[in-house]
């Protein structure tokens, strides 16, 4: 991990995207905690204003027709976003019922 930290932030995010779980890799009904966000996209920033920030607990609840956009539960409300944006959120999954 030390290697990653001294690297450019973008490389670190690229690394995470390759090897870490993102919002798109959660299973239906699975919960996760957001750990890191690639904030360059303005839509991602908008999602952060709506509460998708590091430390927030989310639950993947459904996908629309054609598997996109996705719906997540976030502190009792529901938010929908497209896969292309969900990919920018790295999560660590919580065990079932957690």
């Amino acid at each position: 991990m030390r290697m990653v930290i001294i690297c450019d932030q973008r490389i670190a995010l690229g690394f995470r995207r390759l090897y870490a779980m993102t919002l798109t890799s959660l299973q239906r009904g699975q919960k996760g905690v957001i750990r890191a966000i690639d904030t360059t996209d303005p839509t991602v920033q908008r999602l952060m204003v709506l509460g998708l920030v590091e430390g927030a607990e989310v639950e993947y609840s459904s996908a629309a027709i054609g598997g996109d956009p996705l719906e997540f539960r976030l502190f009792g409300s529901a938010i929908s976003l497209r896969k292309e944006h969900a990919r920018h959120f790295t999560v660590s999954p919580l065990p079932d019922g957690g």
Partner: protein
Amino acid sequence: MASPGVSRVPVDQITVSRRPSASIAVVGNPNSGKSTLFNRLTGLRQRTANYPGATVEKHVGTANLGKVVLELIDLPGTFSLSAHSMEERIAVDVVLGRMPGTNPPAGILAVVDMTNLYQGLFLVQQLMELELPMVVALTMSDAASASGLRVDIDSLQARLGGAVVCPVVATTGQGMNALREALAALPESPMPDLPVFWPELNEAAEKLAGESKVAMRRIEIERELIDGSDEKLAEIRRELFGDEPPLAKEARYRYRWVREVLRGAQQKAPLPSTWGAHVIAWLNRPVPGTIGLLLVMATVFQAVFAWATPVMDMIDAGTATLGFLIASQLPEGAITSLLSDGIVAGVGSVIIFLPQIMILFLFIILLEDSGYLARAAYLMDRVMRSVGLSGQSIIPMISSFACAVPGIMATRVIPNRRDRIATMLAAPFMTCSARLPVYALLIAAFVPAESIGWLNLQGLVLLGLYVLGIVAGVLTALLLKVTALRGPKPPFVLMLPEFRKPNLRTVLLQLWGRVRVFLRRAGTVIFTVAVIVWALAYYPRSDTVASELAGERALAEATLTGDALGETLQRLEHQAAADQLAQSWLGRAGHVVEPVFKPLGWDWKISAAVIAGFPAREVVIAVLGTVYAVGDEADEATLAQRLKLATWPDGTAVFTLPMVFGLLIFYACCLQCAATLAVIQRETNSWRWPVFAWFYMSTIGYVGALLVYQLGSG
């Protein structure tokens, strides 16, 4: 230059009873129950105006709180003070006191949905930096306790720097007394202590405030640092935010604080399953969700046609009988004709569609209030993306099934201007409630009421017309998005509100509002048009026709007897009425434009009706009603019966199936609605788009009708 003898009193010493002493901004997230609460507090003491330079309605009401009278401003819902759409920008400008013509608020009523404290408190925290007195209303506290949510109000109040927190149920009025008391004391209350959550930002803002020559409040400097792009602040921004986007950093800091507050104040029990949760769980699956959406729309259209029929038949028969009674009881002449052929036949033929329009509006209001429309936007995003729009464009389109005017206004939530305009131009293609009468009349008269399996043929044709409107609208959006309105693919981010049982009171109030608009139009515009059209169709009276009739009648009476005489007399009178109509002003004008519409198979009567219908399409029915009543002696016939009997001079029927389908397609496409044109003009702030929309849609309608008639007639 005060004139002598006039003593001046400082403005603040004048007290007029019942004058609001201060204005309070009502701010909250969308769907937080803000407007319901606002209605509770102000009752009917409301007025609606427009914000300068924008079409967003400004809702201002007066709250009578015992000794204190306050002005409440109901602002568009927003999640943050970083405005994202036009409506949010207005909310932010009013809150910051920089909206011209609106009093800077002396206090804030923050409305927070108790079941969604997370996003609600984010906004509350931003609002606290206004350094204004604040009351926080926690709405839907019943739903919160039903779901097992417990909120420690005292702890929350302490965390919010002492701002009064009032749990309420806006729909039933529970908790309103405490809220009223808190509001009455609001202008005199101290501002809440600011929570420290981002000391660096506060310091930077204070330093800038000290340096600045113009007095700026801390919040304005902070918003400028976060949302602005002023180059002079670039250095400070770099220090504050590093490489990160300011918005992202702000969100992190604020939500960290929100989570801390919630940890102390909110104890959440496991959610017991409610019917709403069950419905969502089912609708969340892509396939049942899609089938559900189709079923919902099919039910709406089926209901519009099937449920309304008995009432419509009654109104239809009533109108025909009334016309017949007037014609048979009063002496023959201009007044009688005006009453029975002009007013009763004209206005009656439009009023008959009130039941259908009520059912349609009821469904749209229910879909909106239950939170289903947002779900439709989510389900359809993928489809809309293929035409260059996002799921957000679906809500304006579905609203346009009732009326394109509120539909076009609903495009305001779409952040990008190009996407907004593309949606606005697609919306008028959706079959609105004013098209329904024309469809219903022609379908009922000319499509056989047969069934194919369990499908009703008439219902099928109606469904086809709705589909035609949707396809034409969507293709129009696509066409625009690849040509004039080309731009990046719009993003899709949407909060999906919980399913809620719509509040009966709110639904009925909205429905009554729509019905009133319809009846007022029937009573004014359509009434006037009916009278004018009647006059144009009745005058001038030709003496030649009258004397010819008298001559031939005398001849017939002298030579014929019994049934043959009766039949001949009837035929003669019918002929005379038709001749009178043909040489009337309307007849002459209709003959002038007839060549334009002849290739579509329309006679001069339909051409005249279509032209009269350009300001408002439902007028067409009134015109047809009047024209066919004036030119017809069968007083007790309904309009549909009269249309069936209409013939060309050579005796062939005017309303053949290809001609009827062409006419229907013309109506499906044509933009015959001055109100829609006006609202497009206002919302785009240019004449270019309404003019384009009018020519574009009229051309499509004409060409479509031409093709169907010419190909259909072989």
